[in-house]
Each structure stands twice: as structure tokens, then as C-alpha cells.
């Protein structure tokens, strides 16, 4: 039983990271109906940006309290990753809006290949070690032969995720920006007629998705203590699976899907086979799309002729 609770904690931590990435997929799909294939690589790019930023602050500028350094890194990585996402949307996707339906997807796949190879060329193909942060462990329950413990970084990850999701939820539900986004999601043409700047709103959606991916990137870097140029694809597909499982287009769905995928992956590794953990995720993706295409919390898509 202790083992189960330990895995539950690990799964929820991993799931928060997937949930943060999944929001980027689900919002972009909701607003322009496109699978932003490069989102996983934007996330990977943000892990590198966060690590470089952190090293600049700690090694070159000697910013002493680590918490302050991490806070600056969080803001900086969000801004710089957002700039990348804005540029990608502007250069690679916007010219193809209204073109035939496969064009943006192919462009996004090209962008994904470009980003991962850009990082490989500029930063090298090796794993880059990150400094150990907040790795102290708190023992919650001492069992006979197994104890349940939670590390400081796990608490940090869950706390940051909750705070940012709350802020994000407020923006989408209660501000003019969020209203414009929801209006564009429902009917882009009508929103434009009513004076919503559709292009700016779509850009903003990409920027918000990338900012949350950057948060996930920083947390991922802290959690695993290592970054690699190839780490965009698999977390990207898993986060997309989370978005689909929760119901694509639904924000609470993306978070729920992320937590479920994190839990399933951890439990599968713990109780069945660690080798086949990715097979489990990919199978869930296929099964969900085939049998439950609208996901757990999504609206069923009605096809009009």
C-alpha cells in the first residue's frame, strides 16, 4: 500500500508537467483546429532556455538566493519561449491559414524537425546536466518495509502548477483577452465581424500555450536534472495524448488528461513493465481517438454538410 501511495505522488508530479504542456495543444486545436506538432519541441527548447538562464544567473551574475534565481528564470524562460512561439506562428503557420487542411500540419512537422536539430547543432547532442535543486526529501509515512516520501521539488512542481493554472483559468474566464479567445473558438468569422482582432488573438493563444510549456520545461529540468535535444517528441506526444484523453479543446480536460496519463505511466512502470510504458501511452492515444474521439470532458464534434 505504501508503494502505491509513493507511485501516486510520483504520477501526480509527472502528470502536472504533462498537463501544462497539454494546455498548449488543446488551446491551439480549439481555436484553429490544428495539431501544433512543434509544441513538444517548443517545450524542449524551453528546457534549454531555462537551464542556460539559470547557469547565467548562478555562475556569471552570482544571484544568491536560489529561490530568487528560479523565479527570474521562470519569468525569463516564459518570455523567451513565448517569443519563439510567436515567431513560429507568424512565419510558419499564419501564411498557411485558409490553405488546404494538411499544409499547416506539414509545416508544423517541418518546424518540429527544425527546432530539435537547431538545438542539437547549437548545443550539441549530449545530455546536459542541470544543477540539483530542492532535492531534499520529506518522509510522510514510515511503513514497515517501505516509506512514503515526497521531495521538495515534487512539492514545488505541484504548487507552481496549481498557482499558474489558477492564474491562467482566471485570464481565460474573466478577462477581455479570454473572452476574445473563447469567441474565436466558437466562430472566427463572427468574432472578426464584432471587432475581435482574430490574428492577434490566435498569436496570443500560441504565446500563452508556449508560456505554460516553458513553465513545464523549467519544472521538467528541475525534476529530471538533465536536458536533451531529443526530449521534445515523446513528452509532446504524451501531452497530446493527455489533451485528447481529456477532450481536445477543453482546458480542465487537458489538466485531467495530463494527471491521468502521468498516473497511468507511473503505475504501468511500477506494476507491469517499464520497457513498455510508452506503448501503454500510445495505445491509450489510439484507443481514445478510435472509441471516444471527444474525450472525457470534450464536446462531441457534430459534422455538418
Amino acid at each position, binding site marked *: 500500500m505504501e508503494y502505491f501511495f509513493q507511485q501516486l505522488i510520483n504520477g501526480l508530479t509527472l502528470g502536472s508537467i504533462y498537463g501544462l504542456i497539454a494546455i498548449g495543444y488543446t488551446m491551439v486545436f480549439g481555436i484553429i483546429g490544428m495539431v501544433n506538432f512543434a509544441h513538444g519541441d517548443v517545450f524542449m527548447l524551453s528546457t534549454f532556455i531555462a537551464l542556460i538562464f539559470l547557469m*547565467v544567473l548562478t555562475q556569471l551574475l552570482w544571484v544568491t538566493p536560489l529561490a530568487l534565481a528560479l523565479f527570474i528564470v521562470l519569468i525569463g524562460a516564459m518570455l523567451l519561449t513565448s517569443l519563439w512561439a510567436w515567431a513560429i506562428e507568424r512565419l510558419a503557420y499564419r*501564411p498557411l491559414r485558409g490553405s488546404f487542411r494538411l499544409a499547416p500540419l*506539414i509545416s508544423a512537422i*517541418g518546424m518540429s524537425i*527544425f*527546432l530539435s536539430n537547431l538545438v542539437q547543432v547549437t548545443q550539441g547532442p549530449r545530455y546536459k546536466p542541470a544543477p540539483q535543486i530542492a532535492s531534499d526529501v520529506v518522509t510522510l509515512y514510515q511503513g514497515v518495509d517501505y516509506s512514503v516520501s515526497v521531495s521538495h521539488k515534487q512539492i514545488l512542481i505541484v504548487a507552481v502548477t496549481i498557482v499558474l493554472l489558477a492564474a491562467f483559468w482566471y485570464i481565460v474566464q474573466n478577462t477581455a483577452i479570454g473572452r476574445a479567445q473563447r469567441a474565436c473558438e466558437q466562430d472566427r468569422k463572427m468574432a472578426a465581424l464584432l471587432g475581435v482582432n482574430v490574428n492577434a488573438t490566435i498569436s496570443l493563444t500560441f504565446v500563452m500555450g508556449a508560456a505554460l510549456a516553458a513553465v513545464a520545461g523549467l519544472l521538467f529540468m528541475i525534476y529530471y536534472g538533465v536536458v536533451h535535444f531529443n526530449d521534445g517528441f515523446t513528452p509532446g506526444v504524451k501531452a497530446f495524448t493527455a489533451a485528447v484523453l481529456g477532450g481536445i479543446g477543453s482546458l480542465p480536460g487537458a489538466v485531467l488528461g495530463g494527471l491521468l496519463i502521468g498516473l497511468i505511466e507511473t503505475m504501468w512502470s511500477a506494476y507491469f513493465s517499464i520497457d513498455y510504458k510508452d506503448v501503454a501511452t*500510445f495505445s491509450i492515444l489510439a484507443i481514445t*481517438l*478510435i472509441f471516444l474521439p471527444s474525450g472525457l470532458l470534450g464536446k462531441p464534434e457534430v459534422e455538418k*454538410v
Partner: protein
Amino acid sequence: MAVAAAERPATAGRLVAALKDAAGAALLALGLAVPILALRIDQDINNQPVLRPRWDDVALAVALVFCARLAWLLLRWARSGTAVAKPRPVSSGAGGYVAARAFAIVGAVLLVLYPLLMLALVGRAGAIKWIDNFGIQILIYVMLGWGLNIVVGLAGLLDLGYVAFYAVGAYSTALLVHNLGFGFWLCLPLAGIFAALWGILLGFPVLRLRGDYLAIVTLAFGEIIRLVLINWVPVTNGYAGISGIPKPTFFGLPFNASDEGFAAVLGIEFSPLHRTMFLFYVILALAFLTNWVTLRLRRLPIGRAWEALREDEIACRSLGINTTSTKLTAFAIGAGFGGFAGSFFAARQGFISPESFTFMESAVVVAIVVLGGMGSQLGVAIAAIAMIGGTEILRELDWLKQVFGPDFEPTQYRMLLFGLAMVILMIWKPRGLIATRHPSIFLRERRAVRADLVKEGHG
């Protein structure tokens, strides 16, 4: 148009505007380059991570973007003065069709003569490299592109897991050779059949899906197959792969220096060139077979059903076409050709491992099909030559080392440029290089129809 000329700002003003625009692009490039390019994470002698500054690279990147943007703006400016916008014709008439056909025939003849041309141009030693690295490598992708074109281009089903069938073909060849002792020529058709069966097996669950969802599910299937190949060690030998797959023989004659070898029986001097040329003609024949079958199938009811399915699924169903069998045959036949290509790949390499069947391969093949112009056989071939040949040619650019210093390795920019080329080609020509349709049924005269007039996948 006097009014337009008067409204146009003066030359100096436009130049300033262009410079401002280019400066803005350079500023954006600076913002993008600084976080990832300016500082490289390296390790010092104590294995501690340190940052190594590379501001010269940032300056180079920014200058490059500035010049490229300025050149593009000036080029567009120069063009807008001369070109008069005229309405594009709906169809190019019979002329376009005849030109495309003539081009295809000339291309086919050139392909057949390619090894001999290379032999004459660069001699025996150089020819092996050019036939193997360029000829065979490109033809494998041409064949994969034509095979996938049946699924994506004709039936309109976006398949991002095509590499799975390539892997099934390669692994079934390797396993049949090792466990049952079959030769290549027996494995080749069996690999195609196995791959086609897998095509039906994986096609069956995804019959209801379309567009992006179909793409993602097929991607998941492709990854599942690769992960199984990695983890099912007793059968597939995992990451280590399977080696010792024999090369194809010429009617039972192996290409080696032995007394029963091809050279000895024909009484000519042994040369590894014979085998390379033979492999080239095998893959050329397989590619032509794919092309011929596709062109023939387009005129059969099943081919017409595929194209109808691509244009409008609901209309298709209302007219009584069985969409289940139509989709499954497209998956099966496309997968079968992928299996042939995989079998050839295994025999040519002599060694296969899961590393060769990553998602990247699927993405490359899909890119070739879409960039070539979905459904156009000629376009797919041109795209394969441009994309694969273009990245292969980076291996030959050693003179760049003299320009950029000995550390400069052109090959590492291969996939970087590939990704960039995909994006740029999509923006430049969203419908692909050859964006005309040649209907297989027509009234009086055969015409090519512009593809952007055709709405597809809106069923």
C-alpha cells in the same frame, strides 16, 4: 496605371522602409538567437557544466537574416514593377499534360542510364559512391513516396506511421532469412504480403477517423511497432538489430569473388561495382512497378473510388461506394509497397535495427508526398530527388571547411535544412511542386486541372 504610380512612395522612401523592415527582422532574429545560440553549455576539465559564449555566431545569424530579408524585399519590389497580375487559367489545357508526360519519359530514360553515365563521368572508384549514396538512396525514397502516395495522395488518408510497414518488410525479410533460410527473392514477395496484412490490421480500427486524428493514430501505431521491435529482444534482438542478411543474387549467382560468383561465371573481372549496379536496377524496377501499378489502378473502379473518397467521403458513401473496403485496399496496397521497399532496404544494408525506423522516416516520406503535390507521381519523384539528394549532397561539401574552418561539419545541418525546406516549400507552394490534377476520365480532351480548385477532405 497613373494613379497607382502616384500612390507609390518615392524610391528613397521605399528603400528606407525596406531597410526598416529588414532591421526589424534582424531584431527578431537577435531575440530568438540569444537564448539558444549565444551561450553553449559545455563541460570543463572537472566535468562541471560551464557556459561558453559564442557571440560571433549570433552576429552571423543576425546579419544573415538581415541580408536575406532585405534581398527578398528588394526582389519583390523589382518584380512588382514589371509583372502585371493576370488571372490564372483554370486548366493548362492539353499542353501541360503533354509536357509533363514528355518530362516523365525523359526522366525515366535518364534514370535507367544513370549508372552508366556516372561510370563514364567519374570512373569506377567514384561511381560506386554516386550510384549507392545518391541513386539507390534516392530511389528507396521515391519508391516509399509512391507507395505512400496511394494512401495519402489518392485516397486522401494522412498516414504518419508509414515507416511501420517499411519496418515490417525489413524485419520479416531478416527473420525469414535467419529462421527459415529463405533467399532474398523469396522474401521480397512475402515481405510485401506481410506488410499488406499489417496494413489491413492497422487500417481496420482507424476507418472512422479522418484528417489530423487519423494522422496522430497512425503515428501512435508506428511508434508502438518500433517500441515492440526494441523491447521484444528474443525475436528482434532489440537495439542490437539483426545482421548478416544476404544480398540479392542474380538468378542464383551471388556477387562475390568466388568461383560460383557472377563475375567468374560470366568470365569477367570481379568488381564490387557489379553488385551496386545490380542493386540500383532492382530498386529502379521495384519503383517503376509501384508507379505502373498506381497508374493502372487509377483507371480501375477502385482507383476512382479512392480519388472520390479523397474529394468527399459523404458524397462517396451516398453514391454507394463501400468506404470500408476502399480505405482498406488503399492501406493494404500502400503498405505492401512499403514492405517491398523495406525488404530491399534490409538486403541492401545487410543489417537492420529499430534506429532505422523512427518517426523521422515517416515524416520524411510524408513530406516528400505532400511537397511533391499529393497524387502527382512525377511531383513525388522530383520532391524525393530534391529533398534526399539535397541533404545527401551536404556530405560532398568538404570545400566549405576551407571557408568556415576545420570544425565546420556540413552533414550536421542535414536535418536542420530539411525541416527548414519543408516549412519554406509549404509556404511557397502549399499544394506541392506539381499542383495540377490529371483526371483519369475526361471529355474530348485531356486537361490538367489546378489543384487549388479542388476542395478535398471536406466530406
